[in-house]
């Protein structure tokens, strides 16, 4: 097993190396000279020339890549040309925000999606099923930015219950933090809840017809014990896989929702960097996110190894 773990660990390095080439290469496809964009309104030729030199834009792509990767190897992701802040500092600033938003959104998605899916499966073609399906359809077809603005208008402008946007650190004021995060988390969670509901429903329908569920019922177990302990537990496997994937997507930032609620997370950081051609920021954030994915995958692999004795041999 140790050997297997070492093999998995060793595979991280070539994976991240390929990822870094991909990030750097794709970025070169962005049209326009970043120095021209970064030189601002006046586009002073001496500033453009200086930026070319500073960003090594006067060097071949391969050399530029080496400059960057050498910095990364030393833990230096560079600095934003636009604001002069170190990229690592920007990432560490945004990371807690993005993680918190992802967790809250996922919690809301699970709290709505899974019970709704179970109820829908239990009353297949009945009123609950219809209701849950309508809810899922709503969740899937409502654009995030629209729902966001509507919620701001209702809860912030008309009712005055919640702040319209902005972010407060939970260490500063937990209540204000939750008040600021609840709407964006709901907007994000709403769409994922719909996906989870649909999958829970179909998985539950399959499981409810399985022999062991029938056996459990025949043994006279209380209905909710059968549903929760026997059926749902087994039905959740594909749902958890799907939820994990959705969670991964949430961690890479949610551009529109962050934009509408002015949440300073990864999505906003990357989009602004792309529009401003702030290459160091794009590279740093995408590499960071990709590394997080790779590491999470590795952790999942290790968990499988620990949980499933068949894989260890």
């Amino acid at each position: 097993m140790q050997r297997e773990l070492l093999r998995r660990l060793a595979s991280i390095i070539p994976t991240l190396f390929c990822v870094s080439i991909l990030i750097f290469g794709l970025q070169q496809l962005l049209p326009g000279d970043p120095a021209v964009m970064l030189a601002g309104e006046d586009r002073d030729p001496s500033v453009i020339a200086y930026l070319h030199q500073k960003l090594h834009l006067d060097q071949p792509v391969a050399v530029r890549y080496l400059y960057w990767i050498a910095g990364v190897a030393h833990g230096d992701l560079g600095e934003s040309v636009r604001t002069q802040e170190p990229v690592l500092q920007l990432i560490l600033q945004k990371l807690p925000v993005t993680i918190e938003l992802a967790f809250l959104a996922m919690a809301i998605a699970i709290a709505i999606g899974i019970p709704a899916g179970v109820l829908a499966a239990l009353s297949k073609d009945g009123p609950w099923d219809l209701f849950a399906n309508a809810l899922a359809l709503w969740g899937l077809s409502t654009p995030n930015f629209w729902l966001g603005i509507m919620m701001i208008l209702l809860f912030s402008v008309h009712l005055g219950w919640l702040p319209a946007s902005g972010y407060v650190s939970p260490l500063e004021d937990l209540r204000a933090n939750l008040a600021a995060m609840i709407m964006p988390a709901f907007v994000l969670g709403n769409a994922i809840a719909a996906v989870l509901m649909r999958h829970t429903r179909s998985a539950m329908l399959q499981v409810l017809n399985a022999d062991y569920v029938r056996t459990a019922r025949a043994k006279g177990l209380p209905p909710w014990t059968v549903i929760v302990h026997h059926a749902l537990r087994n039905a959740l496997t594909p749902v958890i896989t799907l939820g994990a994937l959705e969670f991964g997507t949430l961690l890479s930032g949610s551009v529109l929702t962050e934009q509408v609620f002015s949440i300073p997370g990864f999505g906003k950081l990357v989009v602004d960097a792309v529009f401003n051609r702030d290459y160091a920021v794009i590279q740093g954030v995408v590499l960071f996110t990709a590394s997080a994915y790779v590491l999470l995958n590795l952790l999942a692999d290790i968990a499988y190894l620990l949980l499933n004795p068949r894989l260890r041999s």
Partner: protein
Amino acid sequence: MPIRRISQILVVLFISLFSSIASAQTLRIGLAEDPDVLDPTLARTFVGRIVFASLCDKLFDIDEHLNIIGQLATSWQWAPDNKSLTIKLRKGVLFQDGEKFDAAAVKFNIERHKTMPGSNRRGELAPVTSVDVMDPYTVRINLSEPFAPLLAALADRAGMMVSPKAALKEGDKFGNHPVCSGPFKFSERVAQDRIVLDRFPDYWNKAAIHFDKIIFMPIPDAAVRLANLRAGQLDLIERVAASDLPTIASDARFKIARTTEIGYQGITINVGKSAQAKSNPLGRDPRVREAFELSLDRQGIVQVAMDGEAQVGNQWVSPNNPFYAKNVPIPQRNVEKAKALLKAAGDEHPMFTLLTPTTSDAQKIAQVVQAMAKDAGFDVKILAAEFATSLNMADTGQFDAYVLAWSGRADPDGNLYSFDVCKQPLNYAGYCNPEVDALINESRATRDPTQRQKVFNAVAQHVLSDRPIIYLFHRHWLWAYSSKLSGFRTFPDGLIRVQGMSLH
């Protein structure tokens, strides 16, 4: 007796505590973008100037009518040959780190602007050759040639004074901890979230400052910015969407302020930027350009694309600017004449591509222009490209016509020189007319306003008939703010000056 005494002390303490809470005012401003680096030498964006207005005082400033007034300068005198400017400085001014502001600091700052790698101020101060410290509160700025726009440049970022001690200590990282002499000092910045400034207690004009803190929050979406204002989370927002004005006007809790910008919105035509100018019907024949301009109804464009919130114009400055050339008035739409011109040019249905950034205003303008020009026989294809891409296309001459806005500078030179003089960086049109170059250079060397006006009139005659840029209108800067905020004044440069403002 002791109880009475204690109760008196408690009352006094309570009142003083209450009054300190009551006076602890925070002004929250919603910005349309996140500013770039907060170093006046390196800064490049318009929105950054809004933050600087509270953070960094300048040698000069502009008033509501675009007149140059002293800020850190108390008086100034040009040499008879106009090749040097002597400035008397305000005494008793401190930088936010406690350092003294004096002539040596001015010399340091202007030299920093001129020599720092990547400085965006070098071009604005190009004719400055040296700075002499005459006495602790007098400097002389020496020029290689007379340069009338110098005062306007010193009324913007080139005139901002930073603490030499802090600048030397921080080097090129100064923008992360800027130290100036303005009414508020830098406290913290969270990128894309907020910039917080705290009151500088030793500000030279502290009687005009009535806030303890200013928080700038970048919120790019105009609807969300407004929602924040309406929800009471912001006190003031800039660049309000014109379509939201009726909603704000109907609510007594808010006020609207507007003024015409010093910039312009226009269509740049590729007349010589690249080989494409030859295949561009607009680029190769001035009659086609004239026909194109005659096909446009500027008032109509403003109504449809800007909800009426702009002033029509035909020059680099708006018609109410003192340097507007009255000898070339705004041409009226004349489709028949346009058709006749096209017939004379031998191309009754010229086809060209109108490049536009993907901003909603620019795209609306392009669509209205397309429809209007069609009446005269033009076949306009719209090509919308993300801003950086469109800029790259303009820079390399891969366009026929380009919808482009300019935020403007206080002196007309800032709207003219870089766009219309041969091979200047913003001359996307590729326009090159030696007579115009000579005239614009003359306008730079002429300080007398009447004489300068005559030169601008001559420039207008040439440029507006050559049409490298068809100027369309000047947008209104639109602000909305809480009725509790008083003392808000509008300035044509679109900046927010907090002096005299207070919340009740």
